[in-house]
């Protein structure tokens, strides 16, 4: 009986790659169409430690895209974190999966401990807040997003994958987060119904996101710099580097202050807590 993941076919990632992956810890924030794909792929590549975070339970409208979910889950109203854990453990039983049926803002102490955060959230406001958190604790964040727009009576699918690396251009630098966009989103709060979502664009974006992760953690070549932002055109079925990239500053100016690092309130009480 096979009980251990055999990673022989990915040994080109380096002599230490199996150890590095086994000792790496990633958080997946949001386990819907995108996050469930990423969880499955990270299990296959041998990631050792997962922190999976989502406050929601599966609904029948999720079944068109949530990897690993079954009709039985819909009947039972299974938590999305439980589905993710089941998928991961079915591939790699030795993976350490910490699951939190909560918003990421309720588990920030655990989120500080991860090497990389995957942001698989719906709103501009949420991805902006999550990026701010990741920058504060010097954690690379990989964000994926897709959308379906109605154009002249037809539909267009688009999306993006972004690597938000501390000190490098952020979502504001890249125009993915704007004050205007946040204000419009806030004005629409509560009014929007379910956004259109389908499985194949999520799968494409999730695969690119896992590629970003592997390039950071176990790079198989070092000559080609990974573009920070890749844009997905779901109509043409292409993924290309954003044309914004040549115009970006080398380093981010939105998160460049010492005051934006670490615990906002560090007191003698914090020290006593540390020593206890």
């Amino acid at each position: 009986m096979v009980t251990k993941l055999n990673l022989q076919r990915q040994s080109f990632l380096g002599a230490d790659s199996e150890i590095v992956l086994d000792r790496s810890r990633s958080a997946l924030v949001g386990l819907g169409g995108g996050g469930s794909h990423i969880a499955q792929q990270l299990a296959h590549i041998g990631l050792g430690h997962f922190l999976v975070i989502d406050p929601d339970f599966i609904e029948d409208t999720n079944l068109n895209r949530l990897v690993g979910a079954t009709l039985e889950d819909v009947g039972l109203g299974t938590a999305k974190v439980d589905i993710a854990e089941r998928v991961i453990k079915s591939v790699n039983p030795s993976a350490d999966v910490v699951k939190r049926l909560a918003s990421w803002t309720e588990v920030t102490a655990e989120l500080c401990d991860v090497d990389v955060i995957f942001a698989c959230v719906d709103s501009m406001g949420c991805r902006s807040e999550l990026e701010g958190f990741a920058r504060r604790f010097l954690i690379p964040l990989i964000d994926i997003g897709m959308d379906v727009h109605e154009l002249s009576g037809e539909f267009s699918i688009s999306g993006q994958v972004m690597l938000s690396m501390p000190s490098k251009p952020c979502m504001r630098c890249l125009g993915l987060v704007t004050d205007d966009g946040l204000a419009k989103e806030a004005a629409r709060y509560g009014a929007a119904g379910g956004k259109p979502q389908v499985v194949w664009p999520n799968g494409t974006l999730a695969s690119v996101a896992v590629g970003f992760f592997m390039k950071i953690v176990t790079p198989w070549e070092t000559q080609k710099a990974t573009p920070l932002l890749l844009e997905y055109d779901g109509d043409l079925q292409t993924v290309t580097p954003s044309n914004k990239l040549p115009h970006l500053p080398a380093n981010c100016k939105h998160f460049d202050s010492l005051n934006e690092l670490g615990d906002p309130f560090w007191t003698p009480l914090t020290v006593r807590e540390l020593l206890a």
Partner: protein
Amino acid sequence: MRTILKLTSTLYDDLVRRLREPHDFAAERVAFLKCRPALSATSLLLLAGGVHHVVDGDYVDDPSAGATIGRSGLRKALQTAYTEAVSMVHVHLHEHRGRPGFSRTDLRENALFVPDFWNVQPSLPHGAVVFSFDSAIGQCWIPGSSSPSGVEVAIIGNPMRCTWKVTNGY
């Protein structure tokens, strides 16, 4: 509880470039990483946001050590810790590959001057780290604790390098 020093590869590359610049008489250069602390579920994090460099004139010509900081240099470092409210991590570079080690002089001097930063920032942890070309090792003094704890180092960039992930170097 582990202590982890995190710095971006942008900061690290600039730091190493400056540490490798020759000095008129000092055999090596030293600097201080300006850090803000954070407490995660399992670790004390020292998050580096800048470098306090020791300027040429603040080294003392002391053949018994690779680099000795004069009174003026130490005073400036203490001033930075006080005015910017930061944890200070003394850094220097051993120019070889593989896991570095503190020399006997390093260990003796670290124990003498690192706790001095508590005179200006008593509630913050302070420390010392020595880098090699592909690894690092460190010590951290936590307020209320009489002896230093070990420090792991993570360089956040593309690629990401963490001392605890592989057995030899990052």
